[in-house]
């Protein structure tokens, strides 16, 4: 279930609101205490997860189909009738703080969280996990207020996949969610983006390098070309970054690029981690490869991307959880579901020239570069 109200909607100075809500909302609901909620999830054998993403409060679960009806009734309590017991609030806040402190100790994670914060205008880059300095501004009232404004049926999307039919679940949903009412009143004030270039000192063995550059939205007609461009860079072990940075030069263990496509914008996010003395060379090679994509793409490179995509699309069908999340995601971004056949034909239709047209229209430039490690790079 995707409910609008993710971290992008945390008010200025209140980053962490959505993630705190994701924790507090399941600590007691309806006539169940926090302990009884978790006991019931275990009794029904539900693997459950409540998180904040950029756009949404995301609540998901997986269970055997015979337990779906009672599981949905329990989730409707969590959504509609959270207890918001104030005695739990300190623990919620400490939990958010603990998570943030663990990111501080993990430079590989920290560089990507901080890269996203810098490459998008506020509030799109606000970390889903929150910001340490903002925690003191969060109060039970501010979280309840966010719940009141955000957790409303309009814009909420429920995706279900697996061994059930709509006729099976509809009566349960009508019974348990029809009382849900009101409209969300989310406020979003866009601000400035962060600095293009920065170094965060950290006593680490490696220098962790993050590079971002502009891409497109998930709903853009060129989305598949954008996906293919990133896939040529980082789609498999024969892709360019792995080959040039790791296989040919042995500069790092981990190097990748990924397409971060949001509702109305996107960035390509790249990472490489390398020992400090080889960090400058790694940055230069990595940046060079991103730019070189505009010089040309081989037919064989694109064919491999297509083959990988087709296989992984089919294999993803084997998991009900991954089918449910792609249903909800497509409904959010496109307002409809997409069949496997449609995705397959769009991938099949890609040519080297359509992908290159995309790369030329959205070249690797306007970089955001962030490093975390012992020394600053040029």
């Amino acid at each position, binding site marked *: 279930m995707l409910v609008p109200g993710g971290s992008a909607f945390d008010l200025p100075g209140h980053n962490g609101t959505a993630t705190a809500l994701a924790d507090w909302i399941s600590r007691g609901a309806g006539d169940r205490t926090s302990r009884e909620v978790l006991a019931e999830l275990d009794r029904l054998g539900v693997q459950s997860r409540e998180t904040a993403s950029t756009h949404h409060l995301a609540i998901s679960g997986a269970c055997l189909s015979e337990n779906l009806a009672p599981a949905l009734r329990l989730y409707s309590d969590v959504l509609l009738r959270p207890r918001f017991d104030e005695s739990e609030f*300190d623990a919620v806040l400490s939990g958010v703080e603990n998570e943030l402190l663990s990111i501080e100790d993990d430079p590989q994670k920290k560089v990507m969280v901080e890269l996203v914060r810098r490459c998008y205008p506020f509030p799109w880059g606000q970390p889903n996990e929150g910001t340490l300095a903002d925690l003191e501004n969060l109060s039970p009232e501010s979280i309840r207020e966010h719940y009141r404004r955000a957790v409303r049926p309009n814009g909420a999307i429920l995706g279900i996949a697996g061994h059930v039919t709509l006729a099976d679940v509809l009566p349960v949903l009508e019974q348990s969610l029809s009382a849900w009412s009101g409209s969300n009143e989310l406020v979003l004030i866009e601000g400035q983006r962060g600095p293009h270039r920065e170094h965060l000192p950290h006593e680490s*063995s*490696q220098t962790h390098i993050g590079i971002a550059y502009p891409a497109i939205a998930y709903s853009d007609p060129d989305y598949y070309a954008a996906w293919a461009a990133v896939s040529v860079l980082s789609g498999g072990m024969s892709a360019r970054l792995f080959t040039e940075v790791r296989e040919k030069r*042995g500069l790092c*263990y981990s190097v990748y690029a990924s397409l971060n496509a949001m509702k109305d914008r996107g960035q390509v996010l790249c990472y490489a981690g390398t020992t400090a003395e080889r960090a400058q060379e790694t940055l230069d090679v990595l940046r060079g490869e991103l730019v070189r994509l505009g010089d040309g793409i081989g037919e064989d490179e694109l064919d491999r991307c297509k083959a990988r995509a087709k296989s992984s699309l089919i*294999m993803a069908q*084997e998991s009900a959880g991954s089918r449910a999340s792609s249903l909800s995601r497509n409904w959010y971004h496109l307002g409809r579901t997409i069949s496997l056949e449609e995705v397959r034909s769009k991938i099949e239709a890609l040519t080297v020239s359509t992908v290159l047209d995309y790369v030329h229209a959205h070249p690797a430039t306007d970089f955001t570069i962030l490093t975390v490690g012992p020394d600053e790079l040029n």
Partner: protein
Amino acid sequence: MQFHQTTLPNGLEVVAELNDDVFSVAFGFYVRAGARDEFATVSGVSHFLEHMAFKGTERFSAEDVNRIFDEIGADNNAMTSEESTVFYAATLPEYLPKTFEVQSSILFPTLRQDDFDMEKKVILEEIGMYEDQPASVAYDRAMQLHFAGHPLGQSVLGTTESVSALTSEQMRGYHAEHYRAGNIVLAVAGRTEWSTVLELAQKHCGHWPSGGSPRTPIPAQSAPSTKYIVKECQQQLIIQMAAAPSGSDPRRFAAELLCVIVGDDTNSRLYWDLVDPALAESAEVGYYEYEGVGTYLTFLSGSPESMKSNLEQISRQFAAVNANGVTAEELEQARNKVATRVVLRGERPMGRLSSLGGNWLSRREYRSIADDLAILRGVSVEDIQQLLIEFPLAQTTTVGVGPLSE
């Protein structure tokens, strides 16, 4: 689902669980060669060798290997642990023959000197990456301390020193001793025919050198010990270990359920004591089985100030469980939780593969999903009580990483 098993004349054991209701097929070569099989002078060689497998064979260059897997969209990789090195892949059934041809060939790589020198740099970067992760540092040191004097205490990655000093000649020697058909299990899960599996195995693995496992498991004795590694961090991590049933002990199922009850990441005793009230970021107990030994591993992280009282609370909780056991209600919840995990993991051939290959490599045992569920249902409160007599929860070995010095 249909189970099949055979042994090739050279000793390669082949097991398969075939299923027409899925779209893909996964297979893996499970080699009984891990960190515990290394002499200290070649620490890290199993893992380094796993990397070298992708650097080319007589028939396929490194570029060929990477390119061919991508051309057919195979999802392939390899991993090394204390116990084994596993080369695995998932693919669509029509690409199984090609994927199998390449994946089976890389177990016998060329080991060219310039590739060896280049890949050594990558391994040293991997060691550097894990050095920056406090949890990895804590795990390595805890294993080292808990299994002091026993080969299970050796780091999978090795150290910067041991990997730097390693020669390709040493690696060849290690490969010749361990990569023999009788020391390898081929496991296949998902959508294909048994006749196809047999044909591929005979064609591509039938000529592998015969010979069995050079491993002779020795018993482990762990004396209580404590080590704190001071590191400038926001959080303190602590790992504690204690003896638990070995991988061949029938009490391992009770041990797994006990750990879920006491230290699962949600709705366990330690979760309610420490994580729910946010006294700790995480407080988990897991059961780890190895050949000949097993461990309970407690992982605790959070603010340095809270650590002393958190460790005391864990002691109290362990003492309470050791004295009074668990309740029927707790056991029932844990059973349901584990049952869901077994079923969901089994949705994909890749999920079934790890259970199929792991069980056969360590115990020559096949268990279907239904078998696993039946075993879970069969564990009683009394079984856990019995387990705790010989293997009580304990804090024998303690390793800390973070601001605290004791």
